[in-house]
């Protein structure tokens, strides 16, 4: 069924009784050409682009819970491509371009909203760094604008511009950045992949990866063994565990990252605004809730919940930037398990095990990467080698020294 205004009207006038289930619930087959491990945004996008771009439709996505139950529904829904280093700039810009055409492509309303992403600078040095990053972006063909105080004050009137410790000095704006409804991304990719013949296997946890003579043969799951010619890992925070089942070590540490949403209020913030002197960012959802994001908890974790210290920290930063938020009440708080890589950049690559492919290391930034990650991973799986866009995101870069360390923080997973 194709969604359209006509379909909406027809179903509205027939009592909404004729909507079909959005995807099938198939039983696992004994063998697939390709199994994607992880039914989140990246896994579903990978399956979709395998089918669409490469005609590989004998594909299963195995997911231990329900589709989209992990980080694709636990992020702060932000999309942007405001990176400094060339590998990141090219990759995330491709992602943003795919976001711009996504809804027509998958025939699903993902509520892509290019409302702008504004990074605030609080010192002269930080303003210079933002100018440099903005110039790097513009050289790469990405939009960026350096804003002065007056423009920022007009754009975000609730900001405390003259905070005694961290006054707002300038801002780097990417107007094409914004937000997307994250659950709809999972559902839209799932539906589009299912329509092309991909089997979506929910409640199907991988408990083993069968490897013989350096070649992958399939996965053991809670629903039995499933054979495959190729196995592609997109397991985010659980990548280390799944990779270990195949005897593969990965340069990751799993950390919990929290997010928060307030009660709904009238429109007060039009953009995504980030605080430059700490780790805090805010946007307003279409329902009116303010969505806050902050820092990881700082210790390794596989629990999808965090500690109160970070809650307090995020709220302090929120009120430092927007004093009027002190009267808001918070509705919900949750955590997701991040696959923090040792240089802060992702890995989309082949592995030393024949037929096994790896997609991980997304740190804080997995959601905005979803389309390009799926697109590049599908290419890598289909061709057996990385595309030019993910040619820098190799697993061997830690041995060759070609790390992509956007923050210059070194091999400290909890600092990226």
């Amino acid at each position: 069924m194709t969604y359209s205004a006509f379909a909406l009207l027809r179903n509205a006038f027939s009592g909404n009784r004729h909507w079909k289930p959005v995807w099938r619930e198939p039983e696992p087959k004994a063998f697939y050409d390709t199994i994607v491990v992880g039914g989140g945004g990246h896994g579903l996008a990978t399956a979709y682009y395998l089918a669409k771009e490469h005609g590989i439709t004998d594909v299963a996505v195995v997911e231990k819970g329900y589709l989209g139950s992990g980080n694709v529904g636990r992020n702060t829904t932000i999309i942007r491509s405001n990176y400094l280093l060339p590998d990141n700039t090219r990759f995330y810009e491709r992602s943003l371009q795919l976001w711009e055409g996504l809804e027509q492509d998958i025939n699903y309303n993902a509520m892509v909203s290019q409302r702008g992403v504004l990074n605030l600078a609080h010192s002269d040095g930080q303003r210079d760094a933002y100018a440099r990053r903005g110039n790097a972006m513009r050289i790469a063909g990405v939009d960026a604008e350096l804003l002065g105080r007056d423009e920022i004050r007009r754009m975000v009137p609730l900001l405390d511009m003259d905070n005694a410790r961290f006054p707002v000095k300038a801002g780097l704006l990417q107007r094409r950045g914004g937000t997307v409804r994250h659950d709809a991304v999972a559902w839209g990719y799932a539906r589009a992949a299912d329509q092309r013949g991909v089997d979506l296997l929910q409640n199907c946890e991988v408990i083993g990866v069968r490897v013989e003579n350096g070649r992958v043969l399939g996965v053991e799951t809670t629903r039995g063994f499933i054979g495959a010619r190729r196995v592609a890992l997109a397991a985010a925070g659980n990548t280390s565990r799944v990779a270990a089942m195949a005897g593969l070590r990965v340069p990751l540490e799993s950390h919990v990252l929290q997010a928060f949403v307030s009660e709904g209020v009238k429109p007060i913030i039009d953009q995504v605004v980030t605080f430059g002197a700490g780790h805090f960012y805010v946007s307003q959802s279409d329902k009116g809730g303010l969505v806050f994001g902050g820092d990881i908890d700082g210790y390794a974790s596989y629990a999808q919940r965090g500690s109160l210290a970070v809650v307090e920290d995020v709220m302090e930063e929120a009120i430092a930037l927007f004093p009027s938020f002190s009267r808001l009440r918070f509705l919900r708080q949750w955590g997701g398990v991040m696959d923090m890589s040792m240089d802060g950049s992702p890995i989309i690559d082949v592995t030393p095990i024949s037929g096994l492919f790896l997609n991980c290391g997304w740190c804080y930034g997995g959601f905005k990467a979803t389309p390009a990650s799926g697109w590049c991973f599908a290419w890598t799986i289909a061709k057996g080698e990385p595309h030019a866009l993910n040619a820098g995101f190799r697993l061997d870069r830690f041995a060759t020294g070609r790390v992509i360390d956007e923050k210059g923080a070194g091999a400290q997973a909890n600092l990226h």
Partner: protein
Amino acid sequence: MRIHCPFCGERDSDEFVSTGLVRASRPAADAPIQAFVDHVHFPDNPAGEVREYWHHVHGCRQWLIAVRDTRTHLIVSVELARRGAA
């Protein structure tokens, strides 16, 4: 999360900083390059009980070793690092 410091008693984990797993010290200077790559970039990342260093920076400033479950954040035991690391 609360951590039972041997000197200060049960304290909020916010007073502590974790510096990660207790593990072998760096490879010998003449070890192959891959040993250094593994040491720096390829940490163990287990789901389950781990032994970690925690520094009580906002308390007695002692280094501790805690056994903690990364799936539940349950802290099983805490001891002084200078005893546990031996």
